[in-house]
């Protein structure tokens, strides 16, 4: 808890609740998140360079299937219990099937602070996991109608800032390799946690601004925003065990599963499923699930991974 980046997040939330004029200019938010995305990509790419790509195929397939499964689980709950419209249920389900890069960054920092090993190619799985939930979400809302312009959807996904910067970082890290990256490490690697602190400060302010909407949309969203990541985390731990990952790696898959998107998916849904109300999904993913994961979830899922490895580990 004395982890300073978490304190920055809490500080941001408090400042947001006080309606303080603390927000960074949006251009700085952009800069800071660009740096984080590239760094995460580079870190993953360095690892990819160390092993044959094909050896990762099982992980890729498993994570892809997980990304299909989670929104399929979430959708009926949202539609039947939450009484959301078809489009809204599909859109929220897509957010929870996909991932949050911010949560992933905090998880990297958590693993670093506690010296926990994890398979660094996680960054690749992060990219993979962004995608299936978007497709599932659209299909859930519209059926497999020919109306959906899949070409446009694909363009939107792959040219969106989030995925493209991750992919770019992955490729650069992969091609250049660890040694060559030494010269750009001071910016991308040494500053990583400081930049993450600024990012979390801003995210805290934005998260706080979502709490107002929460009152409006009520209790169900609050419960869903906490229960869903717990369920997904358990699925993620199962996947991690199946893939025979390390404890840290298992926890990482759980964290990926438990996190909910607030960049790539909102952008894609806005254009492919505009009738879904973006306030609903952002309130849940940013206002509830992100703080929950950052403050409690990450270390909880890690503990779960430890226990799971004791009982079911190889």
């Amino acid at each position, binding site marked *: 808890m004395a982890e300073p980046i978490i304190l920055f997040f809490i500080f941001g939330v408090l400042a947001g609740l006080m309606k303080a004029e603390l*927000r960074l200019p*949006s251009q700085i938010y*952009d800069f800071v998140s660009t740096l984080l995305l590239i760094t995460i990509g580079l870190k993953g790419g360095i690892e990819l360079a160390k092993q044959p790509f094909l050896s990762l195929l099982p992980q890729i397939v498993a994570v892809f299937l997980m990304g299909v499964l989670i929104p399929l689980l979430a959708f009926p709950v949202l539609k039947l219990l939450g009484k959301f419209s078809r489009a809204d249920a599909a859109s929220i389900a897509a957010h929870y099937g996909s991932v949050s890069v911010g949560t992933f960054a905090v998880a990297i920092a958590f693993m670093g602070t506690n010296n926990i090993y994890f398979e660094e190619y996680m960054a690749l799985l992060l990219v993979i996991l962004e995608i299936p939930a978007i497709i599932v979400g659209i299909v859930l809302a519209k059926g497999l109608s020919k109306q959906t312009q899949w070409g446009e959807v694909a363009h939107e996904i792959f040219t969106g800032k989030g995925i493209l910067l991750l992919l770019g970082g992955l490729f650069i890290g992969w091609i250049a390799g660890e040694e060559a990256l030494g010269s750009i490490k001071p910016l991308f690697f040494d500053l990583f946690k400081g930049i993450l602190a600024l990012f979390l400060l*801003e995210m805290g302010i*934005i998260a706080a*601004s979502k709490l107002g*909407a929460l009152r409006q949309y009520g209790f169900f969203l609050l419960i869903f925003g906490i229960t869903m990541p717990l369920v997904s985390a358990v699925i993620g731990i199962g996947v991690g065990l199946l893939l025979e990952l390390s404890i840290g790696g298992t926890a990482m898959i759980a964290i990926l599963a438990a996190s909910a998107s*607030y960049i790539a998916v909102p952008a894609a849904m806005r*254009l492919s499923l*505009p009738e879904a109300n973006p306030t609903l999904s952002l309130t849940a993913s940013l206002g509830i699930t992100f703080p929950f994961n950052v403050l409690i979830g990450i270390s909880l899922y890690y503990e779960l991974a430890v226990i799971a490895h004791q009982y079911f580990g190889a």
Partner: protein
Amino acid sequence: MQANNKTLITIVTEASLENKLSKELDDFGVHGYTITDARGKGARGLRSGDWDVESNIRIEVICSELIARELMNLLQERYYDNFAMITYSHEVFVLRPEKF
């Protein structure tokens, strides 16, 4: 409308529509447009401009009255239901009316 007068339409909407609307305007055959970053409040709540997802843009297009009406109707039809968007228009005096 006088010979030197044209119609200026202003569109205030979500920043995520910038690419799509630029293409829409190109296809529609208007001769130009001007975009500025904005934030604001409306029926769809506060759009604070703090990050991309909650930012607005403000697009201005000068064109003939006819095109203006068509454009406004098209935007209403395609976007009003699902996006934070307002459009308004008024006459302006320009020096090279053939340009717009």
